[in-house]
């Protein structure tokens, strides 16, 4: 847990050195995130667990679809899962999605990716899945 938080902190600090965009937002459903340049830290809340994770967007491309501007992005996500039911848990995946500026700095991002989740309860249980994520982010330039 401490290692994960330290790791997130180091990445965010590094990213801040060349920060252009800063963002704060809501991750569906029941989560918050902070975006710093191409990095994002997020936390998701459930009655049985809480996650602490990081997203990295290495590729972002602007493109037009049906005369509308979109940002097409690819990324990686990794989460540590904290729960009373588990000794440990991790979820990670790769995704790709579209980002649409709604108005001013408010962006809506929808992406889909392949995720893997590994949980250690009485035994280790691992599963794969297709995950659709929706994020609403208020981005402001520094």
């Amino acid at each position, binding site marked *: 847990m401490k290692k994960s938080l330290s790791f997130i902190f180091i990445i965010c600090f590094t990213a801040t050195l060349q920060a252009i965009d800063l963002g704060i937002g809501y*991750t*569906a*459903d*029941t*989560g918050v995130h902070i975006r710093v340049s191409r990095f994002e830290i997020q936390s*998701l*809340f*459930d009655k*049985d*667990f809480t*996650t602490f*994770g990081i997203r990295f967007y290495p*590729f972002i*491309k602007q*493109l*037009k*679809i049906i005369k509308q501007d979109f940002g*097409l992005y*690819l990324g990686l*996500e990794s*989460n540590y*899962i904290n*729960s*009373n*039911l*588990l000794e440990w*848990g991790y*979820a990670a*995946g*790769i995704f*790709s999605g579209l980002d649409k500026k709604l108005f001013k700095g408010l962006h809506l991002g929808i992406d*889909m*990716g*392949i*995720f893997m*989740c590994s*949980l250690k*309860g*009485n*035994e*280790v*249980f*691992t*599963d*794969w*899945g*297709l*995950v*659709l*994520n*929706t994020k609403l982010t208020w981005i402001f330039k520094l």
Partner: protein
Amino acid sequence: MKKSNIFFVKFFCLTILLNLFFISKNYSFQFGFGTKGFIRKTLEKGQEEGKISKTKDEKPQVYYSGKISKFDLSQARYIFVSARSNSTINPVLKKAKSIYYQPQNTEQKVIFKIKENGEIEEVNITDENGNIFDVNVNYIVKMGTEYLSVGLEINGIWIIKKSTQIVNGSTQTVTTTEYQKLPTYPGFIPKYLVRIKDGAAWTGKILPTDYSPQPIRYDDYGNYYFVDTSERLIKLKTSDMSWRVITAESEHVINTEEGKAFWVDKFGNILYNYSTMGNSGWKYRKISSPGELSPVVTEIPQSFVDGYVLLDSNRDVIFMIKKFEELAYNFSGIKITSIKCNQETNYEIQISSFLSAEAQPFLYGGEKLHIISTGDRTVSFMSMGYDLNNYQRKFRFTELNLSNGTTNYCYEVPFSSFNATQQDNLLSYQIVNSTTIYVLFKTPQNLGYKYSLYVIYPIEQKYELLYETTRYAIQANYWQGFSSEVDGSITVYAYDLHNEGVKVLLKIIPKETEQILYSGKSEIYYLTKVW
């Protein structure tokens, strides 16, 4: 759409397709709305399969002390140490252990037991909660009839977790195991005292080791006596598992052909041969009450004790036998001295001795005498020497009456009776009691060797061939606690000469055939009869 954008869209689709293609069959695949939704689905699926607890209370409490508390010796007739092989792993743990023991740990040695029905099973070593230790066993030494001294290193522990869960709609107790590595200290081998009757174990700072096999003596009050690696005489009190050094500072117990020179009677009186700063002598440490030593130590003159020391089956008196020659009176015989201290003598030392004209047990002079058994004021000896008439090797069995110094019987068997001519044809002998002695010979046969196991009955003055083989090379080492079973069968360790590298444990059924209890490539050590 720009060319580069088309590339990104294609890359996205291809990534998803490739991932779908490579998903392992071991995993399911599910769709989740949001990472949280996906994690929740995974959690619920794990709970359905009983791998994750549904509530915090269901979560098993993991606890282990790291302290060995029991060796599972139930139903064990023999135990031995050997490398673990998958075929002999306890089936309950086979799956879990195979993860850790292939193939880098094939030399790891564990204890196996041969059960009454001939089955071989690994001996589980557990803590007080039943968690099973992953160990590497160095040695086993049998202490009297009730205890074992075991040296082993602990590598880790399999924590057994049990929890009550609802699996597929019904409440079940789910047992899972988890391996936890424990810190090891290279070069340090922890020692354990194991009680045979129930397998209870204690950590021991000072216990007998296999460093140099020595006699382990005991009294009738739960005390054991042995010499440690510093050659100090140690008394181990099993009532509270405490130990104390008996010998004085700078004294050490002298080593003889028969082992370390010390004897203990059933009350706990000790006679020992010591050496210190260039001096040597004999000391008698008497008791103040049964099992409890008095601080009084008495020096015993060499005129009494320069010879054989032994106890009879009553174990209430220590006897000292000295071959005696009085040239002036042309007398040749033995001097028997007894020493005792108990309630009868009001805890005072009582020494008495007499001369006897009999010297038959000592006929071979320089040859080593083996005490094969003790009876009520009798002692039986076995010796090996040359027949002065034809210079043939032979066994000689005699029984000496300690009360009057007379010889009860004398039986001689030449090696030629066993088709053996040389001393090195005799591989080993095992003494069960004064009536039964097993001897193992290895004699040339065509291009190889024949192994023959005989039994000698000295009192009945006869011998019998029990088993002979040219296929199995019977190993005479590690015959700790050797004895025959009620049905007369004997368990031995051998190499299969027809299958290179194969070792076997043979149950020899006299005059019939052998039964293979174990067959494998692993070497077997410390084959020990438990009871």
